[in-house]
């Protein structure tokens, strides 16, 4: 979750010098094709942004075909942008489709 930054954090940050990115392997370094941890990671960093705040429809717990998810992701739909194979590759997209297809509805309803 997003952290609040307070004055102590500002001061602490100033003491860190020249952080070079390659050493860290968390969320930050894994957000494109071939780098996602798993389907949930893709969902939480991309899909959820719109589909869990009421901008796009709920896509979990809908019993939709996994292929359908894949097709919508690649082609986009109306205002939903299309996502490219460099965003998420075919193999991971398949996993995302399968995960969503089997997922329970958020909050257990529907």
């Amino acid at each position, binding site marked *: 979750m*997003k*952290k609040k*930054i*307070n*004055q102590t*954090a*500002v001061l*602490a*940050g*100033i003491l*860190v*010098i*020249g*952080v*070079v*990115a*390659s050493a*860290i392997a*968390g*969320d*930050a*370094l894994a*957000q*494109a*094709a071939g*780098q996602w941890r798993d389907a949930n990671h893709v969902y939480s*960093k*991309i899909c959820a*942004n*719109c589909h869990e*705040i*009421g*901008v*796009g429809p709920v896509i979990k717990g809908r019993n939709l075909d996994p292929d359908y998810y894949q097709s919508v992701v*690649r*082609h*986009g*739909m*109306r*205002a*939903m*942008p*299309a*996502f*490219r*194979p*460099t*965003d998420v*590759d075919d193999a991971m997209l398949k996993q995302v489709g399968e995960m969503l297809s089997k997922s329970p509805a958020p909050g257990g309803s529907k």
Partner: protein
Amino acid sequence: MPSKYIALPKGVSEKAFDAAIREYREILGEANVFTDADHLASYSKIMIPDSTDNHTPSAAICPASTEEVQRCVAVCNKYKVPVWPISTGRNLGYGSAAPGSRGQVVMDLRRMNKIIEVDPVLCTALVEPGVTFQQLYDYLQENKIPLWLSCPAPSSIAGPLGNAADRGVGYTPYGEHFMFSCGMEVVMPTGEVLKTGMGSLPNSNTAQVFKWGYGPYLDGIFTQSNYGIITKMGFWLMPAPPAFKPYVIRYPEETDIVDIVETLRPLRLAMIIPNAVVIVHALWELGSFLKRADHYTGTGSIPDSVVKDMVTKNKVGMWNVYCGLYGSPEQNEVNWNIIQNVVKASGKGELLTAEQVGDDPVFKYRADLMQGKMNTAEFGLYNWRGGGGSAWFAPVSQARGSETLKQMDMAKKILGKYGFDYVAEFIVGWRDMHHIVDLLYDRTDPAQLKAAHDCFDELLTAFSKEGYGTYRVNTAFMDKVADTYGPVKKEINRKIKRALDPNGIIAPGKSGIWN
């Protein structure tokens, strides 16, 4: 014989293209060159009022390093294949990831996604094109580096390099993004690698801290242009302020835009209001969470009286001004008092803090954007009309009340002629405003698509006649906008293009620049 490609680059034979594709595959591997319709669908989808056919790519090539970009550029020169570079490729409402014209190969730089360095002392970052704002945001959070980003409203899925390359804007004090960039690495059309500013000096450690270098300042010519492929860009990041206080000022009448601008300009110029403030029209404010059909089902643009009712019912302003205070609590208090007094003295406007607004998703998303937090709530705008059509009309205005009113009246009149709504905001620079109108239409309805195209065309014609230029435009109208800036500018752009890119292989037609 039907082609095996969904489109071909202009003037390139299928045989020559076969050879080029073979060479791209040798450089990048099979998995990183796409020519099939299924994968290319994601490089073809557009929201702008133009036929998809005009923006269908022939292929997409996806290099993972500067060296691979150089080698691909050599192949492009050999076969005269044009490439349209994209970084994170979310130029939604300006052309998305699709090329400016049919048959160009998209060079997708999303695989180049290294955060090369973040310097928490000098507060700078150096990133590759495929880095998203979300990735950089997470990186800063994970490493507890107290620096803030400034991002456009699509935040998480867009990226700092592509956005700045098109001179996009955000909402923090660093909201004019190109202004806060510092140093580039560019692969030139000839394949050479140029480092701009201080970066061209061997062993220099000042590339991300001093913009100008020596001699002509070149960075600008690589933005909104086709003179090179940017493979790295430096940015200044904002130290997280000890305290942040977002607030909104609501105004009841459309004509209040005059007083708003006159009241706020001195505060903005004096940096008492330090950030890129937005003055949001009611239909943008409400359109981000309401559906048009629930409020109006008649023909033509939504009547003013209906908008007025919606404003009253939903307790928003006809204009809603979102600003922030950034500093120590003591500094913020001083500035808050100044702002309260100025608003009070103006006799108009209701000033509200986060606490007073309470649980309001629009206020929350605006507050997030003003502190560079990821939030894509603004996509809710597309549910207003539905159908996925969007074109940003983006004329620049002086920060002068009479001017903003004149532009609003002009835009409303022309939109009304075609049955579209005035869904708009002004993004406040120091002395200018980006007047951003989202021409929302149903792209699944051919009549609306045509009307949107014609409406956009008329907006451009009418505004440029009054001397109002647009700051950025979608790929269907690049030539038209280039013409509005006059023949001398156009010809000089072309001379530079010919000198740097004799084969015209990089993004032909970008910003109306052709060889």
